[in-house]
């Protein structure tokens, strides 16, 4: 049955266009000119530049998003780092030293003032 069907379908090749129509259509057709390659290239270039602009825009948005997200992470990392630094014993020692020297300076200042007062009294 399949073979018969196929051979029956092949018989449809008998359908042919009208010779007069073919001649007329051919003449009309070849009076037309194809779209020029330049115009086609222009449209192709336009399409290409459009695609490039879109791609750049997407890249820009993508880069912006990445940098924003990465920046956020860095900020967080900085905060974490700062708190870690604040907790470090080295920093505590330095702070204590600073406090010690500040107090020492005050004491020296007091002693200097006292010496100055005593010298003034002796001169009088």
């Amino acid at each position, binding site marked *: *049955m399949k073979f018969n069907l196929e051979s029956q379908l092949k018989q449809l090749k008998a*359908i*042919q*266009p009208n010779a007069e129509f*073919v001649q007329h259509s051919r003449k009309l057709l070849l009076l037309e000119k194809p779209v020029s390659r330049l115009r086609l290239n222009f449209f192709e270039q336009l399409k290409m530049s459009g695609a490039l602009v879109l791609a750049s825009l997407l890249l820009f948005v993508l880069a912006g998003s990445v940098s924003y997200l990465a920046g956020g992470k860095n900020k967080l990392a900085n905060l974490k780092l700062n708190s870690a630094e604040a907790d470090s014993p080295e920093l505590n020692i330095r702070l204590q030293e600073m406090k010690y020297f500040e107090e020492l300076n005050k004491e020296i200042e007091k002693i200097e003032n006292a010496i100055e007062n005593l010298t003034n009294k002796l001169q009088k």
Partner: protein
Amino acid sequence: MLEKEQNLIEEAQNGQEAAFGQLYDHYMPRIYRFIYLKIDNRAEAEDLAHETFLSAWKNIHSYKSQGFPFSSWLYQIARNKVIDRYRTHKANLSLEEMDEEALGVVASTAEYSLDTALSLEKVQKGLKALTHEQQDVLIMRFVEELSPKEIAEAIGKNEGAVRVIQHRALNALKKYFEEEHEV
């Protein structure tokens, strides 16, 4: 495939009308037949076949051979023309009118006997019982003898899908004829 087809295409792309004329002479009967079998109206089939070649000629620069013959590109254009025609213009011919016309064209153009003409008419009627896609595949495969690869390119599907459509179409056609025979 036409001999030296690639050369003819290149010449046509360089604006040589004679080269496109040769392509036209070779492919016009096939494209006309394909359209005619789809719409069953001689005048409209002629118009659409002309439009198909007009589009092909005007846009000949956009054709790029990618391992597929020029015919696949033409069938693709013709197919789109038929789809557009179905979208914009619902068939307004009655089935009887269409059948009469179909029989007339086959009998007059091919000098076939009445029996053969009747048999062709039957096949045409059978094709009408199929989906548009099934019709496309059967016409391209068995009437125009295109390879599944060429058909796949023309209808925008892969080869596997074309084989499946072909198998289903043949089964549907077989069923149609069996039912017709019973009646």
